């Protein structure tokens, strides 16, 4: 399985650094609580921003005859070091307004000291520091590659925060949380890297140096510190530390370390003796420390803790995803040259392989020679009689990475024997280009001389077991080989059966073949026209599916009676009042569109059943045209009264009927041929075409539509199929 460059680097980076990342993240979570713990006492005074240095120094000088240092920490707690009036040493948090002691300065607890040292160097001194620095740089690269993966997945910056499809828990939350904690994680990584780089002296960094001409220091005119203009002009919030003059000698001075510069101030006159701004590297280092440690902000430190927790989750979920992807691989028992059944897979994240594997295993179990490979491995398969192509779509309707070369390879390699194929697309309606690549592959194969479609292209929305079963059933019917969904893929156990009561059952009426059956569900159901009803005529595994129309609150089936038909005979024998147990399957992709400028319904035979319900449901009176084909006029008769009523009610705007054994002997396709241009126009305007009936009709209609598209439209039919403008439910 090939994987894209970003995914490969994302994984490679993660694998190479995850041990260090886990250690750093674990200790990081603990350390995030240090700012919380230190800030909790709340020694910050109200309206701190309004205080200036002159006020505070004046107050402190009265209170403490000997002052050594005043400092303001990231929490804006003010610490004083000096001696009080009784000659006792003082090192305490004070109130900068009145000088009162608020609390004792606690040294960093041994526990946090220990954790900090571990976080910085893993107790490996310089080596450890190097590895931690490297790790934070790798974390940055992981975050960047992850961002690109999200961009690829969401197809562009605009949709970056759009909905994410839930493939599986690990993958879903890996992406969701990845987006949310992207910024904190990038900040952690960048600042961590910066701090390491500056720690190793790789940045030009200089200590501030003051050049004070000691001989020129004046001791007059002497002013009280409260009157020093520089003190008055400096807000306490700007101060990091103030070092008081060591003695009364004029050459001892105040040193003011502010946020952005350092000042030296004459202790008698208040003149500024020297002023040096901090270099940018110092400012960046301070900013990095603020951001990396969360000091001074409880909220930010909690954000950091959460982000670190997320990192741990990413390591876990990342490995779950990788493991799943790797476990999707299989070994082929038969070679490409000897196999009859060729399964070709296009998968970006490996989930499609699970389905392919399920089919593959069942074929092998039944003694068939099957071969499984990715689409890029397309080659000559001399013994092949069947191709099964299972493919996802990636990005903007593009091929997944391991199918990217398929299109060009298909042109180059021609099979020497006829091969029938079936394409099954995997995707989600959450994306606009639903299964586009699968439709493209189907079209491409249709154009191959040697290839013929066994069944039409099928799609699986959001890993729906029902969708997959529908394909499996269609394929099994054509080949006589039973494949199905293994239990782990089928997901939840089959839904509970519903009890339905027969209300009307027409005799196999006017044409002797077709009858209508009406059923009423007990209790409330969410059934909509186009859904499927599964019945079990012999009360065993054999299931028969019927498209239903919902008329009023009843379910209507239109059934053609076949001699010895398992399902049709069973249904035909039902009398009003009788109850049956059946399964109602949602068939989301075949519901009447909620918003469409117009809808064209195309059916033959009993395929009209869901359309009858849809027309009845068309309360908003969307323009609807119905093209239906029957054998003889007698077949139409059971529907004619209903259709006339609907036309009068404005729910059906146009009705065209083709009769294949009477009059002009037309098929429904012939009607469409006449209105070819109108069809194309409808597609262009965003109209929706719905097909229900036999596969043969579907094939003809699609061919006709494709040629209409080529004549009148800029895109081919697969474009409209992937935009859910051509909906099909044929059998």
């Amino acid at each position, binding site marked *: 399985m090939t994987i894209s460059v970003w995914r490969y680097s994302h994984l490679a980076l993660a694998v190479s650094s995850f041990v260090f990342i886990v250690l750093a993240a674990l200790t990081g979570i603990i350390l995030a609580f240090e700012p919380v713990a230190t800030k909790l006492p709340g020694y910050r005074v109200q309206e701190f921003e309004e205080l200036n240095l002159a006020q505070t120094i004046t107050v402190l000088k009265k209170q403490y005859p000997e002052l*050594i240092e005043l400092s303001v920490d990231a929490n804006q707690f003010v610490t004083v070091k000096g001696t009080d009036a009784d000659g006792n*040493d003082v090192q305490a948090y004070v109130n900068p307004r009145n000088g009162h002691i608020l609390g004792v300065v606690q040294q960093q607890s041994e526990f946090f000291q220990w954790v900090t040292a571990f976080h910085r160097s893993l107790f490996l*001194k310089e080596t450890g520091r190097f590895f931690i620095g490297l790790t934070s740089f790798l974390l940055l690269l992981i975050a960047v590659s992850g961002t690109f993966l999200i961009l690829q997945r969401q197809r562009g910056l605009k949709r970056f925060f759009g909905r994410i499809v839930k493939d599986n828990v690990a993958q879903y939350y890996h992406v969701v949380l990845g987006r949310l904690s992207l910024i904190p994680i990038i900040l952690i990584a960048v600042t961590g890297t910066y701090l390491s780089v500056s720690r190793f*002296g790789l940045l030009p960094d200089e200590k501030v140096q003051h050049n004070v001409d000691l001989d020129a220091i004046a001791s007059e005119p002497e002013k009280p510190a409260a009157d020093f203009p520089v003190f008055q002009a400096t807000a306490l919030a700007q101060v990091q530390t103030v070092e008081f003059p060591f*003695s009364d000698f004029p050459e001892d001075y105040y040193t003011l370390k502010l946020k952005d510069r350092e000042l030296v101030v004459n202790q008698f006159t208040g003149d500024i003796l020297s002023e040096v701004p901090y270099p940018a590297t110092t400012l960046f280092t301070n900013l990095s420390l603020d951001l990396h440690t969360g000091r001074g902000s409880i909220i930010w430190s909690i954000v950091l803790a959460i982000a670190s927790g997320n990192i741990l989750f990413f390591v876990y979920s990342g490995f779950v995803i990788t493991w799943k992807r790797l476990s999707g691989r299989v070994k082929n028992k038969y070679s490409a040259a000897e196999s009859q059944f060729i399964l070709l897979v296009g998968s970006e994240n490996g989930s499609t392989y699970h389905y392919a594997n399920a089919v593959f295993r069942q074929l092998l179990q039944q003694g068939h020679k099957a071969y499984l490979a990715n689409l890029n491995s397309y080659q000559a398969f001399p013994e092949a009689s069947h191709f099964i192509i299972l493919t996802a779509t990636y990005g903007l309707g593009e091929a997944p990475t391991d199918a990217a070369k398929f299109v060009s390879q298909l042109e180059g390699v021609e099979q020497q024997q006829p091969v029938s194929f079936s394409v099954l697309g995997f995707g989600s309606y959450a994306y606009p280009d639903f299964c586009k690549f699968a439709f493209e592959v189907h079209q491409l194969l249709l154009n191959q001389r040697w290839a013929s479609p066994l069944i039409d292209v099928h799609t699986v929305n959001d890993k729906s077991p029902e969708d997959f079963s529908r394909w499996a059933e269609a394929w099994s019917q054509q080949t006589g080989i039973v494949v199905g969904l293994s239990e782990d893929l089928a997901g939840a156990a089959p839904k509970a059966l519903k009890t339905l009561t027969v209300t009307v059952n027409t005799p196999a009426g006017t044409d002797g073949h077709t009858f209508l059956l009406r059923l009423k569900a007990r209790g409330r159901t969410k059934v909509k026209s186009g859904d499927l009803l599964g019945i079990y005529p012999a009360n065993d595994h054999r299931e028969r599916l019927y498209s239903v129309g919902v008329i009023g609150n009843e379910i209507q089936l239109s059934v053609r009676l076949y001699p010895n038909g398992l399902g049709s005979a069973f249904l035909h024998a039902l009398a009003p009042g009788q109850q049956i147990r059946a399964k109602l399957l949602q068939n989301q992709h075949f519901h009447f569109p909620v918003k469409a400028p117009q809808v064209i319904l195309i059916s033959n035979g009993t395929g009209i059943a869901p359309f009858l319900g849809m027309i009845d449901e068309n309360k908003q009176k969307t323009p609807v045209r119905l093209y239906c084909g029957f054998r003889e006029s007698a077949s139409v008769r059971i529907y004619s009264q209903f259709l006339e009523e609907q036309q009068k009610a404005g729910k059906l705007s146009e009705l065209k009927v083709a009769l294949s054994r009477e009059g002009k002997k037309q098929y429904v396709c012939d009607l469409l041929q006449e209105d070819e241009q109108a069809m194309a126009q409808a597609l262009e305007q965003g109209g929706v075409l719905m097909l229900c009936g036999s596969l043969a009709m579907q094939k003809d209609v699609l061919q006709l539509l494709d040629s209409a598209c080529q004549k009148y439209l800029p895109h081919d039919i697969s474009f409209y199929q992937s935009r859910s403008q051509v909906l099909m439910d044929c059998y």
Partner: protein
Amino acid sequence: MPQFLKTALLFVAFFFVVCSSSFAQGVNKYKCMIQMTNYMGEGAYIVISLVDSKGAYEKTLYVLGPDKKWYNTLEEWHKFQKKKPANISAITGASVTGGDRSINVIEIDKSKINAGYKLRFESAVENKEYYVKDLEMPLTTEALAAKNDGTGFIRYVRFSAN
């Protein structure tokens, strides 16, 4: 009663003697300022020790550096501290980085001043040098009044009576 008075007087006298002798042997407090050179790197760990004329450690006066983990980098002092462990928690402060100054109050027995003892400033920085005698000065009234230059990370040390 007289017996009791005698005993009481004896006690009073005894206390007086004990107290006055302890006064005579009293301690001097000094503000000690260490000014660092502009070296680049981590904060320096510095120990101020009282050593006798032969250079043997007598007493630890102050430790700049809170984390015990790094005490072994101050090799010579660490040996002494291991042999005769003293509780230094009350005389421990923060380490000092290059270019900074650190002012701490240290207590020196009066009897040790001008008595042939020395003050030793021992310094070490992570992944840099270790100086056993970054600064060693005679413990004399004269030296305590002057500016004493260091040889390693310390630029100079000054004292002022507190």
